[in-house]
């Protein structure tokens, strides 16, 4: 009889945890959206910020966040996926592999402000680029590589060995097996890795303060000359992101409506992450379905 009682208690406990978590998340999200509701309009999303007077927007910051996301993913997905493939398919158990794994794990627990200062030293100063999008993207790459590597490695490892054997037995090379069988089969996990990475890119502030910078030139979207400082295509310009702007407005904003701006920007940030996640999952599952023929 006792085991049945324990079973009941466990069931109730897990349900309670789930309900608590969902309530907590829902209330948090609705609070943020409610607080920012007055600013959720096109004008706020597109106009540049104002420093001393009310009514400034977040246009450049919003755009910078998206641009930084794309650039960072372009840099970190190939490296992280490559490292994951190496660790799962090529690395032989031994000292070197253990050393790499230890380094990756250490890197993943590094405080992001340290990554930011490292970025300031290496990507901003040593390269001579100054505060720039590319420096921010590289700093975020350092921050995200461990997660991307780890998640790719795990999802590639979880592909059953019988699929690799089937591929080899048909006369495939290792490369063909990885590209045509293993990575496609690991796709759902890899997509999860990209989503986790992207969430951090949107949300990160500390690593960007000293790399992408705390200012953004007013962008001129008709200027497509990549060397001009006001061109959105220039990756060597300073590029304050939404998360950095929220931090700045909150701590040193001079505009009378600084609080509302921060609330509005937070709501926008949350919605962006949400939209990105939904899009990435949809894209991932569509891709996966197309490859597997599952309907």
């Amino acid at each position, binding site marked *: 009889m006792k085991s049945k009682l324990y079973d009941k208690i466990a069931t109730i406990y897990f349900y309670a945890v789930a309900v608590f978590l969902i309530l907590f998340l829902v209330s948090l999200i609705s609070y943020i959206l409610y607080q920012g509701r007055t600013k959720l309009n096109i004008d706020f999303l597109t106009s540049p910020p104002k420093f001393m007077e009310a009514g400034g927007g977040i246009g450049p910051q919003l755009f910078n966040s998206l641009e930084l996301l794309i650039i960072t993913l372009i840099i970190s997905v190939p490296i992280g996926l490559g490292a994951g493939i190496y660790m799962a398919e090529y690395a*032989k158990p031994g000292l070197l592999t253990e050393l790499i794994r230890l380094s990756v794990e250490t890197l993943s627990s590094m405080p992001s402000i340290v990554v930011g200062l490292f970025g300031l030293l290496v990507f901003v100063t040593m390269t001579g680029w100054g505060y720039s999008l590319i420096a921010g993207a590289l700093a975020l790459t350092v921050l995200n590589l461990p997660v991307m590597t780890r998640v790719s490695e795990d999802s590639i490892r979880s592909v*059953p060995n*019988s*699929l*690799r*054997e*089937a*591929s*080899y*037995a*048909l*006369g*495939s*090379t290792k490369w*063909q097996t990885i590209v*045509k*069988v293993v990575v*496609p*089969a690991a796709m759902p996990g890899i997509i999860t890795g990209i989503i986790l990475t992207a969430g951090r890119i949107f949300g990160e502030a500390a690593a960007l303060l000293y790399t992408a910078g705390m200012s953004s030139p007013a962008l001129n979207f008709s200027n497509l000359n990549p060397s001009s400082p006001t061109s959105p295509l220039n990756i060597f310009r300073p590029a304050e992101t939404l998360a950095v702007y929220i931090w700045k407005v909150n701590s040193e904003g001079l505009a009378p409506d600084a609080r509302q701006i921060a609330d509005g920007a937070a709501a926008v940030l949350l919605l962006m992450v949400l939209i990105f996640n939904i899009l990435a999952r949809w894209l991932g599952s569509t891709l996966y379905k197309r*490859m*597997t*023929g*599952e*309907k």
Partner: protein
Amino acid sequence: MKKIEVRELDLFYGEVQALKKINLDVEANSVLALIGPSGCGKSTFIRTLNRMNDLIEGVKINGTVLLDGQDLYKEVDVIELRKKVGMVFQKPNPFPMTVYDNVAYGPRIHGIKDKKKLNEIVEKSLKAAALWDEVKDRLHKSALSLSGGQQQRLCIARTLAVEPEVILMDEPTSALDPISTMKIEELIEELKNKYTIIIVTHNMQQAGRVSDYTAFFLNGELIESGPTDQVFYNPKDKRTEDYITGRFG
């Protein structure tokens, strides 16, 4: 005609010797059944014939294996070898792709891009594996939606699509129901006209039904081999007789 000749073959997993001085010939266009209790080395042996053991860390091989007179481990490129010597595994292992892409996988990696040619190969292979009628309307559905028996025949079709000369089957029906097993056995009967087939089986009746020759393995040694009727009804070795009559194993 001898398709495969194995001479003095030893195989070690690290320190453990899994195969001991194996000598065995395989006739072309025949079915050879490998029988013996679990862990006797029959699966290990079959995997030396397409060098799948290369993938395992710490495997060492002595002796020679000749395919059409050429030494597999010295004179033959492993990719070419696996094109000639296909393999069907114990558990059906279709790729998580469409039925069509599963069968076209082999031809594609070997450089065939022409759509018409691929269509022909897919249809021909699925027909040869007696699966065409069941899947012709769902070629672009996932292979994982097929039943276990259909999946295994798909794996056979996938193997046939690269036009091998030898097909290795490692207990191909052990995960299947009786009806699917029967279909695969009938298929083996068909296929031996064109291919040389080596099948590992736990099932004595299966060995009796499908094979022309039988080889009995025990503790890494080849105890006895010969025409199936002879091995089954007139075994030379006491251990073979004991195993076949069900006294152990």
